[in-house]
């Protein structure tokens, strides 16, 4: 009995000794939590430039409690280093850190245009091999200077990385950008007959709402940005330049790749074409002309959408049919037409079909020029006609067949509801 008791005591002591961890223990206050990584390539030096955005623990904690940025300093620490490889550049960061850089909580990777056109293979291996990154990582491409981008401020969330992360998570499917994370990118890249794409972020300068914010974003002022911001196409207005402008992030458009190299950008409207085919769009608003040709427009929402890609090979030539089915409501009318006749309903549906077809055709046209198959038509052919696919030579699909591929786009629109009112509240309507 006594020996048994002694044994139990020893066992408990042993467990206590080792469950705390010996070699790999890590305390939270020993870690520098990286929130965003920006990576770009410098073609002249042939070097990577890595910028990490790290939480400054005191600042963020205090600010978060009071529901805003209350500290006097920035919530994030930015470190920029260079190296021959991504890993090498990341190692250099240690020279600036009092804590161990911890990448497992990082969710945002921003890739510069130069790196993306050089080829994503330069960083993909590092991002997938080491245990500190996950395939759920959100990767973005930016045309702006990566280093300057990460210096931007945030409007709704506590810091820029948080803002980007929440934009990606919360506005999912309501957005005008390609929906893809690292896993989707790799899956599309490795699939033969399919090319990957990534969402685009860019910087847009605005006058901050309070002078305090201007101080916080002050670091963003120095250093001239390389690319001019071209993000004004939504409302078209350019704000007046004042001293205290701060950059704020904007997620808009799609970066299209040819294999792992950047081929070009799609803007928000073209991205809709991609999203309709990928079935990942809801709450999209399409503007059409009045069905009777009167002045004014009608806006229709897409509530639900589904699509199918049908393939057939006729006489050794592939043919693709894209079938998109969507349904939605009327959300706005500025014309004075009575919409509630069967003819007008059908006309509206037809015009909406034309608009959606136009989006898809735009993307198709562009990607044919770039020789990149982001819809994955080739992959569909491979799945449905493996024999035909085996006979193709390497590169033949992308360079010869896809640009001339016969694609039929069929859209079926259904307008289901009218919103809360039937007729617009103008007096002309009754005349």
């Amino acid at each position, binding site marked *: 009995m006594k020996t048994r008791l002694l044994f139990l005591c020893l066992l408990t002591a042993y467990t206590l000794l080792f469950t705390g961890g010996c070699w790999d223990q890590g305390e939270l206050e020993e870690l520098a939590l990286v929130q965003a990584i920006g990576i770009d390539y410098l073609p002249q030096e042939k070097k990577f430039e890595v910028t990490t955005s790290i939480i400054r623990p005191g600042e963020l904690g205090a600010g978060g409690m009071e529901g805003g940025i209350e500290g006097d300093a920035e919530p994030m620490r930015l470190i920029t280093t260079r190296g021959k490889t991504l890993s090498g550049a990341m190692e250099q960061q240690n020279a600036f850190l009092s804590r161990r850089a911890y990448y497992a909580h990082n969710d945002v990777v921003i890739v510069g245009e130069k790196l993306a056109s050089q080829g994503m293979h330069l960083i993909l291996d590092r991002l997938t091999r080491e245990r500190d990154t996950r395939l759920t990582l959100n990767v973005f491409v930016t045309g702006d200077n990566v280093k300057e981008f990460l210096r931007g401020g945030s409007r709704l969330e506590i810091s820029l990385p948080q803002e980007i992360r929440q934009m990606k998570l919360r506005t999912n499917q309501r957005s005008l950008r390609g929906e893809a994370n690292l896993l989707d990118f790799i899956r599309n890249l*490795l*699939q033969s007959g399919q090319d990957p794409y990534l969402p685009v972020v860019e910087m847009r300068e605005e006058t901050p709402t309070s002078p305090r914010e201007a101080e916080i974003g002050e670091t963003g002022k120095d250093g001239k940005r390389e690319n001019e911001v071209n993000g004004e196409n939504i409302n078209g207005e350019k704000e007046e330049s004042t001293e205290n402008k701060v950059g704020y992030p904007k997620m808009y458009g799609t970066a299209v790749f040819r294999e792992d190299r950047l081929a070009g950008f799609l803007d928000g409207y073209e991205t809709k074409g991609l999203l309709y085919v990928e079935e990942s769009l809801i709450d999209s608003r399409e503007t059409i002309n009045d069905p009777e040709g009167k002045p004014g427009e009608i806006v229709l929402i897409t509530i639900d959408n589904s699509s199918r890609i049908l393939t057939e090979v006729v006489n050794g030539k592939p043919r693709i049919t894209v079938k998109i089915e969507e349904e939605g409501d009327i959300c706005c009318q500025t014309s004075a037409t009575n919409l509630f006749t069967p003819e007008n309903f059908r006309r509206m549906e037809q015009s909406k079909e034309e608009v959606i077809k136009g989006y898809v055709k735009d993307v198709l046209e562009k990607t044919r020029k770039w020789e990149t198959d982001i819809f994955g038509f080739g992959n569909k052919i491979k799945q449905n006609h*493996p024999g035909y696919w085996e006979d193709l030579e390497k590169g033949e699909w992308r360079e010869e067949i896809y640009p001339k591929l016969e694609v039929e786009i069929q859209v079926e629109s259904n307008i289901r509801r009218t919103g809360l009112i039937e007729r617009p509240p103008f007096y002309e309507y009754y005349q």
Partner: protein
Amino acid sequence: MRVEKIANRQFLYITVIMLATVVFSTLPVLTTGNARQDAWASGLLAFAGVALFVNVIVGLGVHFPRCSVVQVSRKLLGNAAGGLVSLIILWSFLHLASLEVRIYAEMIIGGFLTETPLVFVVGAMIMVAVAAAYAGIEVIGRLVDLFFPLLIAMFLVSFFSLLFEAKFINLQPVLARGLGPVLESSYNTIAYSSYLMVLGILIPHLTRPRKATASAFWGAAVAAFILVITAVLTVAVLGPEEGFRSVFPFFRSLRAIRVTEFLERTELLVIFAWGFSLFVALSTFIYCGGRGVAQLFNLKDYRPILLPMGVIWVALSVHSSPDMFEFRGLYLSYVFGAYGLFLVLFPYVFLWGGYLFRKMTGQNPEEERGEEKSAER
């Protein structure tokens, strides 16, 4: 000395765990060979192969419900030849168990505890396994009763969470390149039936030894079911190419998903499940090894040799290969496939040969039902 007894149900659970542990974590149907998106078909084929080996291994054992395979081989082939044949079986326990614990340690060190020495992880696992084997097979049986529902629950939760990201279109085209690649990929998995040789030692400890084949068969079926679902979901989530490139594909596919914002990192479940089942597998291995050695050398008790065996085992596991490259080389189809099949076929060809020879020459090799002979020793 009383013969320790486990229920046939517990025997079935042990069979599932022996087969599923390494197979679901390294997923050889996907990572070896060329089946790619048809990995599930390889899983089904592998089940056919494993079912055959269940009949070879357990089918012989049920004719001798009171003897372990070591005693059977002496009975059938005589003392010297029988001893040599059973040495091969005992060697396979030692080596397969050392490989299994090494894979687990490599995953732990590669994925979580980078700075922890290999010998510590391996040693810790083997120490608890020795402790469990010291307590005897009845204790291991009750342990399995406890763990198995947990294990299944963990599998179900991880399968369910994978469904959120699964794109089943990745499984197409189905069997487009014929059965060749599928066969090639199932080869390695069939070789895992060498793990089932422990059942030869366990048969005399069953409450109903004559029903052992059915139990083992259903165990293999459950394991195959788990394997097929794992393969399907891994391919659906990662895509066949990325899955093929991974060291631990199932684990990786779980790392690649986010169920919701507050439910992520579900791979922990699989690590726990793997740890549990590895513990059961290792204790079964060392228990059977200890029993077998004791019977071979006519020892009274198997317990005193467990600790020395554990030390040899740790050393073998750590020193069997210096790095992951060499270790992965061992698991290539044409290495492990051939090795595993040899481990089963070589002893059992002799054993079945001896059995059939005795049967044909009219000496009844089977035990008589009423014969009172202890399975101990």
